[in-house]
């Protein structure tokens, strides 16, 4: 259990000391992040020695703010999956040895991480996944295919969930592993999406040997590990709090103002739509602040899904309106040359952002499944009748 041992002022002064001792402008990024980790300012809620001070998770925002103001690096941007999802999972489920081995290089960006959950046959129903891991002495042998793997082509490590017991019901037959992405039998291929870019990968596992020491949590606890990761994913996708009027809505307003100068008659037709989107963006921002202020524990609850659902719809609507404001120019597209972006979800053109935004309500949990979660876990509505309940995984019908 983390106890609030320090307060916000102390957290801020520790961060100030960090940027004073290692001025970001003159310090290599990795050295800065290593020091940030060693001083417990990486994930302030983590235990001492694992990048934290055992403090209240909300103090991290104050620390990040000081570092950002001072021009310091952003560990999340460098290693988004590792920082936002794998680390919070490791700190909950890892052995002391695993935490000591992995958290520091993950935070400094020396070792990039990816998560290997989704499969072609297991999208919304991740717990139905089919990649197998069979025990072989002190090792496991993994076979199968993963998909939609962000950063896999640059990753040193992957958080893998595999089926270790096909005779158990689906949620109970899973186990988590820390997969060395350079191990023989791991093949990473780009997955081109409808924007023409390959932000994601397919990962093929063919007889990959994993030492039992790289198992995360107990055999059969894989689904619990997944839940820890996914709850953090929802926060890292839906819960970022930008300043008022920034981000996609700023692009929309800027384009609108340009149109108002060049073609006021057309702009006038869109004033209401732009104002409406601005209000939705601002209210989401306020709702995120509110949820973060009211949040108590370290692990976000299902309420995190609320922000994610709102953000997905808003982002789709903002970019759709942005391309609409472009008029005929919106018919054009820069290039469909197959490329790999350096940073995931980086903004380049309105048209690309518009196309990319379609995934917002699919990735990290479809809005439909999230509504089920909200209805069942927050509102307490009864679950759907399920065809896979109490059935051994191997007997569940699948496509």
């Amino acid at each position, binding site marked *: 259990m983390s106890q609030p041992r320090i307060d916000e002022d102390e957290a801020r002064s520790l961060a100030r000391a960090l940027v004073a001792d290692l001025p970001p402008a003159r310090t290599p990024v990795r050295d800065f992040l290593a020091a940030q980790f060693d001083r417990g300012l990486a994930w302030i809620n983590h235990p001492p020695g694992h990048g934290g001070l055992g403090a209240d998770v909300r103090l991290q925002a104050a620390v990040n703010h000081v570092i950002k103001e001072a021009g310091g690096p952003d560990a999340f941007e460098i290693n988004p999956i590792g920082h936002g999802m794998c680390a919070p999972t490791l700190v909950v489920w890892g052995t002391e040895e695993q935490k000591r081995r992995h958290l520091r290089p993950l935070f400094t960006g020396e070792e990039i991480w990816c998560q290997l959950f989704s499969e072609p046959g297991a999208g919304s129903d991740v717990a139905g996944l089919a990649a197998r891991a069979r025990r072989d002495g002190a090792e496991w042998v993994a076979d199968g295919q993963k998909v939609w793997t962000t950063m896999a082509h640059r990753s040193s490590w992957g958080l893998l969930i595999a089926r270790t017991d096909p005779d158990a019901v689906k949620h109970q037959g899973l186990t988590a592993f820390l997969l060395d992405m350079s191990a023989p039998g791991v093949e990473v291929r780009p997955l081109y999406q409808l924007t023409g870019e390959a932000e994601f990968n397919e990962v093929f596992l063919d007889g990959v040997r994993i030492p039992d020491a790289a198992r995360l949590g107990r055999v059969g606890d894989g689904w619990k590990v997944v839940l820890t990761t996914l709850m953090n994913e929802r926060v890292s996708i839906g819960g970022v709090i930008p300043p008022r009027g920034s981000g996609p809505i700023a692009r929309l*307003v800027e384009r*609108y*103002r340009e149109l*108002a100068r060049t073609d*006021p008659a057309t*702009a*006038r037709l869109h*004033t*209401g739509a*732009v*104002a*409406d989107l*601005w*209000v939705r963006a*601002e*209210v*989401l921002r*306020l*709702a995120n*602040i*509110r*949820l973060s*202020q*009211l949040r108590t524990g370290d692990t976000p609850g299902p*309420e995190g899904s*609320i922000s994610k*659902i*709102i953000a997905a719809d808003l982002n789709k609507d903002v970019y759709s309106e942005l391309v609409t404001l472009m008029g005929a120019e919106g018919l054009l597209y820069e290039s469909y040359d197959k490329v790999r972006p350096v940073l995931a979800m980086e903004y380049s053109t309105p048209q690309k952002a518009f196309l990319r935004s379609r995934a917002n309500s699919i990735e990290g949990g479809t809005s*439909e499944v*999230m*509504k*089920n979660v*909200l*209805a*069942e876990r*927050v*509102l*307490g*509505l*009864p*679950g*759907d*009748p399920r065809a896979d309940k109490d059935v051994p995984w191997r007997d569940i019908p699948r496509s």
Partner: protein
Amino acid sequence: MSPTVDFTYTDEQLELRGVLRKYLAAHSPESVVRELMDSAGGYDRAQWKDLADQLGLQGLLVPEEYGGLGLGATELGVVMEELGAHLACLPFLSTSVLATTVLLSADGEAAAAWLPGIVAGEVTATVAVTEGRGAWDPAAITTEAVPACGGRYLVTGVKTFVPDGHTADLVLVAARSGGELLLLAVEADTPGLSRHPHSTMDQTRRFATLEFGGAPATPIGGDAAKALDRAHHVALAALSAEQVGGAQRCLDMAVEYAKNRFQFGRPIGSFQAIKHKCADLLILIEAARAASAFALWSADADAEGLPLAAAMAKVTCSEAFFRAAADNIQIHGGIGFTWEHPAHLYFKRAKSSELLWGDPALHRERISRLLELTV
């Protein structure tokens, strides 16, 4: 840079919510609401007095020097949310929000004359601003105040959609004297004031047309334009909290019903068509809570940002409450369309609140102006 918004509640604020919730459960159950809906006045004077004696809520915004509680807009939000959840038939929005806010901007004499009576639950009050179709637009006021003897005025004109205008003991009327906008106190039994209650779609919230035919009035001092502006925005923020309270109650009713109503051998809440409707409402209400709390916080901490925050709250909370009230009827099916079921009471309140002091389209237009998006 504006100060940082704070959405957390203190223990005292949570306690206030608990106490009021208990009070309203006992004193404003659905049976009482239905009784008062059918009454001429629309509220029970004895209950209003009892609320003042027990909880002193009428003086929530009133400083202690006038006998009030001296609390802020966050507490106001807590109270409005509970009143909205219970559809409490009380002249709170008119007396303790609108009129009180106006009196707090007036000169000390007027405040000292009226606030103690309001705090004690002995005087109800309202503000008569709107004319014609009911838009809150001080610039368009045509009601005239003509100077008479002893610093008093005679007021002539017609005010429409005055909240609780038929029962208020004190009417604070906005009128023009030459080019100047004034706020004047008119006592209800003054000759020259005739009051015509409307038959309202939402029977739990009453409005009246007030005809002033040379009614004697005392100016309350202060800057009337500023006072009205503030009262408008504080009232919108308060209304938004009431809308949140109503919306949440609708969702609670819908969820409860969806869990217990069986069709096709299953609770209807296990169908995604119903489940997703409920989840959508949860999402809308969560956004509405943030918008409302921000407007309330702005009322205390960021006067400059208040007009935008209040308009955003009006837009967001109106849409959330209307949708919650409408979907609550839909989820209930046939029973939700009956007179005996309370769903229609919330639906009518939702539409009435949506239209009061400007619909979402009008407030979006105001937002466009404030953001300088208007071409």
